[in-house]
């Protein structure tokens, strides 16, 4: 329905609103907004056909900074609200942005259902493992033992893994990126956009004020080659500064393990090849944690199916085809009626 202008015509500035950004200086969100603008420019959907919907939190401020349509809603409800947007107008490109609190704590249920329904939304979870906006309480993704104002002796609950949760919920597109990875993120975002159905992207985001360095285990540029595994469909799961580390299945424990190609008789053939349509592999990748494993980055899983709003529209079109052209009178007089004659 909308004219698609070619990518050349749009650039990141076209997606930049006039609002001054109000994140803390040094916040990882800055890098993300930059990548998103870049990705959108490359995707090329005109600004008027793009909608950003968010909940509440630092991350959820996002829509204000995009020169698109935007709706900063209430805490945790963005996936539900975005579902309504998409039902009303499936032609819009709808992006949902929220933090780990917004989408996995108060909004966990909506995230679950929007994923299972496979609504065609691009869902960006900015995971900083903390509640930023409310000043630093631990979140459902915070590691055990997190010291925070609400857990002065350290948190005792086990964190939820955003990607394992998404896979368990039945998500059909699950990916990961890192705030500072300006090269990688736009590519992942473009993949998310291209996937029709719910695309779930977890972005590791550094909260410099309340949780600085939460991801330094693997997000540091310097050590990245050894701590990150960039997965790509059809490519072997190889990483390491020397490009010789790989992931293979250890059949004894029915789990993954890290091996070094060329050591102990391990060859490239032993290394698993990424198949992004394989849910089991995606589950494994989602569970790999530093320092034992590299952290998997990229599209962990992608296995499209009809999206929810498309199916809903299809039923409506079918109904319209089947039923006589609807007039209000035919509705009001449907079923049994009788006539009282003038007397």
């Amino acid at each position, binding site marked *: 329905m909308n004219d698609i202008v070619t990518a050349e015509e749009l650039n990141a500035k076209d997606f930049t609103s006039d609002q001054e950004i109000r994140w803390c200086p040094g916040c990882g969100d800055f890098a993300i907004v930059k990548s998103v603008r870049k990705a959108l420019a490359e995707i090329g959907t005109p600004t008027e*056909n793009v909608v950003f919907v968010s909940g509440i939190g630092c991350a959820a401020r996002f829509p204000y900074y995009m020169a698109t349509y935007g709706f900063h809603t209430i805490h945790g409800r963005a996936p539900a609200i975005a*579902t309504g947007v998409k039902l009303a*107008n499936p032609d819009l490109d709808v992006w949902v942005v929220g933090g780990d609190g917004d989408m996995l704590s108060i909004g966990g249920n909506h995230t679950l259902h929007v994923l299972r329904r496979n609504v065609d939304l691009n869902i960006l979870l900015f995971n900083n493992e903390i509640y930023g906006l409310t000043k630093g309480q631990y979140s459902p993704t915070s590691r055990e033992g997190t010291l925070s104002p609400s857990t002065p002796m350290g948190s005792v609950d086990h964190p939820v893994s955003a990607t394992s949760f998404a896979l368990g919920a039945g998500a059909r597109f699950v990916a990961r990126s890192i705030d500072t990875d300006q090269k990688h993120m736009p590519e992942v975002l473009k993949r998310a956009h291209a996937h029709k159905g719910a695309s779930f992207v977890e972005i590791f985001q550094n909260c410099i004020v309340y949780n600085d360095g939460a991801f330094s285990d693997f997000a540091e540029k310097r050590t990245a080659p050894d701590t990150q595994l960039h997965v790509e469909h059809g490519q072997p799961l190889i990483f390491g500064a020397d490009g010789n580390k790989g992931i293979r299945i250890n059949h004894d424990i029915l789990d993954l393990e890290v091996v070094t190609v060329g050591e102990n008789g391990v060859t490239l053939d032993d290394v698993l090849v990424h198949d992004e349509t394989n849910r089991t592999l995606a589950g494994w990748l989602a569970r790999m944690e530093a320092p034992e494993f590299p952290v998997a980055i990229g599209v962990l899983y992608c296995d499209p199916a009809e999206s929810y709003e498309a199916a809903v529209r299809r039923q*409506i079109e079918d109904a319209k085809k089947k039923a006589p052209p609807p007039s209000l009178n035919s509705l*009001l*007089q449907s079923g049994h*009626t*009788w006539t009282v004659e003038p007397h």
Partner: protein
Amino acid sequence: MSSDGNTALKLAEVRREEVDEVVVRFAGDSGDGIQLTGGRFAETTAIAGQDLETFPDFPAEIRAPIGTTYGVSAFQIHFGSSAILTSGDAPDVLVALNPAALIVNIEEVKLGGLVIVDSGSFKDKNLRKAGYESNPLEDGSLEKYRIFPIDISRLTLESVSHTEVNKRDGLRCKNMWTLGLISWMYDRRLTPTSDWLEGKFGKKLPEVAKANIAALKAGHAFGETAEMPDGVRGFTIQPADFEPGIYRTVTGTEATAWGLVTGAQLAGLKIIMCSYPITPASGLLHVLARLKSYDVTTFQAEDEIAAVGAAIGASYAGSLGVTSSSGPGIALKTEAIGLAIATELPLIVVNTQRAGPSTGMPTKTEQSDLYLAVYGRNADSPLVVIAAHSSADSFEVAIEAVRLATKYMTPVIILSDTYIANAAEPWRVPDADHFKPFKVGFRTETEGFQPFMRDGATLARPWVKPGTLGLEHRIGGLERAYDSGNVSYDAENHQRMTNTRFKKIEGIADDIPLQTVESGADSGQLAVLGWGSTYGPISSAVGHLRSEGKAVSHIHLRYINPMPKNLGELLARFDKVLVPEMNMGQLSTIVRDRFMVPVEGLRKVTGKPFRIAEIEDGIHARLEK
């Protein structure tokens, strides 16, 4: 008139008595098909041209064990030749298909009323299940009524013996036998029901259709031929004096659904209706789910919060967002409704009220949530509240809700209740071609656009469809600057926006009709002020008392927020104002506050509608004081 009733009628006419109005209650086990019986009887009553109102009273359980009191299903119908406004205070006739149905319902029957029982079901086991220590048909405990025991079970089985249904299915025709008898009694044609049975079972289960029709006819024949006890006879009721036109019966649920569809078409919008099932609100979702060809999208969300959220998203995207629920679910929606208020988006919230607090009595009616509608949100958050006063009225109310929501960019709460949702009444079907459209003018002009600029007259902000070139903008729940809508923590701006939110809603008072008096003078000794489903009993009660010469008037509120501009002044013209409510006095509170009129409440919180007599008593008590 078709052949079947012809001769019967002629014979019957000999002994038929003419009556003005009657209340009949069918009662039996939930498996007995009571609702269906009642529904069919209502249909033929409507066809006979009489006015009517029905009250289906479902058991709370899905399918309670056979014979238990809590498994009793009942259906009351009040019909007659003059205007029928309630489903009737006390039944003139009770049909009880088992002991449990008798014990649960007998107390409400008029003294001397006719009670037809299926004596075949009054076996020891059933009596025990119902809690009878001895057989009430034999122990003289029912002396106050005229009991007519008929072995309906046996007669039904006999009547279907020539068909091929088994005994269980045969017995299931009891309700049709009963319907036949009552049809005879009130001079109803059988063809509409036999046609309907053919249509329903004919193709797939021809033997079932055959058996049901046979039972129906047998019940009717029984009336014509059997020796009737004293006072049991056929009645004639004249058709009511209806305006000419096309008629149908509607429940409040249907009328609301059709009103929403009509309103949306008048506004030029698609409906996106987002809901989560809950008794007694689910019906609206079910009805709308079948109207896909009218551009209605329904979405069964994961919970009420998601439902209202999706409706808000739909409105944001330029459709008509509708959400519906009952008390507990509406409570959950309050935070999100605040967002719609803050962002000034149209939204329709239908609350089909039920008895509370908490889960309360989900299948019972109550005007429980006036407070929740008017006051139940964080912070100062005015919106529009309107209430339907009957099943048919729900149609207009729904259209009005759409008009106000879209014209003023505001959420509108429609208050309905269990009674209205389920009760059926005849409705003169309006001609949709004569409705005045109120097409939404989505903003497309980019020149001078600001998301929170306002229409001078309505104070509404512009509605923009995402997808509109050049109008990209951001809105949200943080306080917004007066025009630009940008986030603002400015003190004066907050005051101004708060004032504006109030003014916008208050201003709607200029766009709604002045309050009229339903019946009686516009001043006098006592006004009875009602809202919602108390309309019927108040109307009837005031009518009775006025015919006795009492200076009583009936005023019925549709607009609860804002209220009609003349309401305070109108109420002040009465010595006393009585507010009957199926709650602990919620409207009373608001009226007292707004107009400093010392209204008095008449409270009933039993899960049942007011009886006319209760309101009459209430009025008498005030008149005598």
